[in-house]
């Protein structure tokens, strides 16, 4: 008798659990902005070599892109980092980074918007997307 009750409880637990999982899956499947999808391709081609697959950067050389004030903060500054490059003594989590970041101004407004939208929604980040129109304005105002 006890065994049957136990099995029943396990079964119920299992069913509840699997339904919970299916609901989670549907949440994750919520439509991702195409900009973020394309941004991943731009990231892989132009950023990953330095900032790495997980956006974790390289100790002492290239900074991480997860939850930094540069990624989540002032959007104009962020767009300019990609367009013009970046070579200052920034400090993130008490570490500094020796390498320079070259300007990637050859990327189109769309590519810059895509890659930044991807970065702002990956590696633990959650922030608004960047639009090509925003990039266009920043590029023009140099």
């Amino acid at each position, binding site marked *: 008798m006890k065994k049957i009750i136990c099995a029943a409880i396990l079964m119920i637990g299992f069913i509840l659990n699997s339904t919970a999982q299916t609901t989670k899956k549907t949440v994750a499947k919520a439509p991702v902005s195409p900009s973020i999808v394309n941004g991943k391709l731009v990231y892989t081609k132009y950023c990953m*070599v330095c900032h790495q697959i997980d956006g974790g950067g390289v100790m002492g050389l290239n900074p991480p892109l997860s939850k930094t004030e540069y990624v989540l903060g002032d959007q104009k500054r962020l767009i300019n980092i990609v367009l013009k490059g970046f070579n200052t003594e920034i400090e993130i989590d008490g570490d500094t980074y020796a390498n320079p970041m070259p300007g990637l101004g050859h990327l189109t407004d769309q590519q810059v918007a895509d890659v930044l939208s991807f970065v702002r929604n990956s590696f633990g980040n959650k922030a608004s997307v960047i639009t090509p129109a925003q990039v266009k304005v920043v590029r023009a105002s140099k």
Partner: protein
Amino acid sequence: MRKNTIIPIFIACLLFIGTLFSFMNKYANEITPFKADADNAGLKLPDGFGANKIADNLGRARHIITTKDGSIYIKLMRLVNGKGILFLQDNDKDGKYETQLAFGDYLGTGITIKKGYLYASSDKEIFRYKLDDAEKVIDPLKPEKIITGLIAGKQHQTKSIVLDNDDNVYVNIGSPSNSCQEMDRGLESKGRAGCPILDSAGGIWQFKADKLNQTYVDGVKYATGLRNVMGLDWNTQNNTLYVMQHGRDNLSSSWPKLYTDKQSAELPAEVMYMLKKGDNAGWPYTYYDPFLNKKILAPEYGGDGKKEGSKEFIDPIVAFPAHMAPNGLLFYTGNMFPERYKNGAFVAFHGSWNRAPEKQAGYFVVFVPFKDGKPAGKWEVFADGFSGVNEVIVPKEAQHRPCGLAQGSDGSLFVTDDVKGAVYRIGYTKK
């Protein structure tokens, strides 16, 4: 009843303390006899070798040097409580070292001992401290500044140092650039004509060990065309300087029409040079391709991945896989390891980052057999497992990364890690 037990316990304590003291005395002026940890400190080693983690969590431990009585000095790349040099000893001889003293209010990488002085570098200066008979620093607060005003860019800023037997110091001055481009690491950015960086960096400079406040004008540009050197050693067998260069990065991100990401992950070789005064190793004009076994003209200077570089530049004597970041070089002169290790070279590879999206490489210490100052066989992995993971996809995963090497007075090998600041001691245990 009580009294009856107190006296024997008291006597037992005295006996214990007594034996402890006599044991400590026996080795007081000697290095602790080597004893491996049960798990060899997590390292994979050749048969007959063992490892012992002698210290941990020291900070960004870079280069290391040992004294004749087995004490060690370590240079830190970030200050810990405002100090950049650690002095460690193992007074109770239990195999674990304790920090006895922290001094030097500057960060850096280079540290070495020669003829009664400890030499240590910041990124712009070299200092020295007089040592007593036990090779302890006499006055940690008053070093002599022997070299000053060296260029330290944001990248390749560290200064590695070594001395010869004739009172000269050799200092690496790394180029603050990847390949002397107009826009460093930029897309298809050309190389600067006659790379002006080479005037004051991108080479090894020679200074006097015993002269104060020397600047560039007092030094000699001993060898040039070296992008960045971290591991260097003076070979006392043939009185010659050997260096490990950190090869260039970003071939495909700067030159996507000429190199695939895979080629970029595997080019160029990390190389060892044997240097004579006046040598030019060719950076930024050439790099070494380990598949073609040739010096290749850099794309920044008109190369296409195939055109050969100029013959005026010297050839490397050993080529290793790309981007593994050689941070330490040591010629082994000890007697503890088997005969074939004698006079051979150990190289500590810090591990790569510029292989993404391919998986990373390095994160180990290799051995190159040598005979009469020349490599006498293929290089082999000597100590692996520092990273604590099977393969490193992103550098952050590596729990430890080898950096500095030193030889103990008994012939054991010390290796620092600059992620957490572990120090490993590797010994030969087979009888």
